[in-house]
């Protein structure tokens, strides 16, 4: 199936939840965050789409007063087609339904994205940090992240920022 056909199939089923966004590339589809769990289940179970593999979940911080994004790379073993699903979040309260029980690998992917960006995956059964220590402060891959000054009494030396290369 081409990306256009996938888009048409999804739009027929979930009209209004598939968002037209001209900034995206022709491999990407933007969907409404609140409907994501139903859309994901449909994309996995529909015999014509059959997205049986979740390859990756990525978080994106698009810059200052912009939003956070979750991006899901889906692949179909049966038809060998791929698509990237993009969901925009409100930066103040980023949350999206968890697809951990649709694709089981999503468990650790969502924990990683939660660890780095603080995106809350609602319905995840064990949403803890996966790489950073449990008592770490802040979300390291956000643009406005500031490192900790000390961690358990270990002082982190302040390193002077060099001037930007001309």
């Amino acid at each position, binding site marked *: 199936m081409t990306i256009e056909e996938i888009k048409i199939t999804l739009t027929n089923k979930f009209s209004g939840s598939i968002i037209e966004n001209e900034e995206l590339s022709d491999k990407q589809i933007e969907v409404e965050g609140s409907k994501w769990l139903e859309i994901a289940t449909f994309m996995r179970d529909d015999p014509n789409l059959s997205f049986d593999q979740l390859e990756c979940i990525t978080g994106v911080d698009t810059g200052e007063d912009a939003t956070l994004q979750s991006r899901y790379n889906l692949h179909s073993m049966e038809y060998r087609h791929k698509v990237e699903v993009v969901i925009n979040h409100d930066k103040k309260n980023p949350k999206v339904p968890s697809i951990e029980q649709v694709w089981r690998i999503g468990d650790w992917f969502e924990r990683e994205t939660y660890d780095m960006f603080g995106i809350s995956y609602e319905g995840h059964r064990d949403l803890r940090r996966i790489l*950073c*220590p449990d008592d770490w402060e802040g979300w*390291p891959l956000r643009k406005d*992240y500031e*490192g*900790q000054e000390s*961690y*358990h009494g*270990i*002082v*982190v*030396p302040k*390193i002077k*920022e*060099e001037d930007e290369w001309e």
Partner: protein
Amino acid sequence: MGVLENKFQDNVVVASLDKLLGWARSTSPWYFQFGLACCAIEMMASAASRHDLERIGMMPRSSPRQADVMIVAGTVTMKMALRVKKLYEQMADPKYVISMGSCATSGGPYWQHGYHVLKGVDLVVPVDVYVPGCPPRPEALIEGLIKLQEKIQTERPLTRDLV
């Protein structure tokens, strides 16, 4: 030797006990076998047949309680720093630390922007020998170990310090 000359049989060694202790400790410093990053690969290569650390008396131990030397081989993250400290405290005296590679020594390439990297393992444990390199070749590590052996040999654990 003076009055002691020719007074002992073949199997008796006469030496300063301090020197004997230094010799005994320096010729078999068993190291704690744990690696944190790519430096650990070089540490493994040093222990393997081509460079063979056992010819200078170094033998890997899997438990900190049996080890004399801790080779911090690799990037020490903040999460690991607490555990490195705990492992160091579990080792029995006398104990020594080698900081292997630029990451363990100063944070290395993570010096400026690595929010999660400890900027030098000497912030949590006392270091005896620093081995530079990224990662150091086995020859460099072996030189560091020989330097450590020389250091152990000069110690006088039984002699009281003159104040």
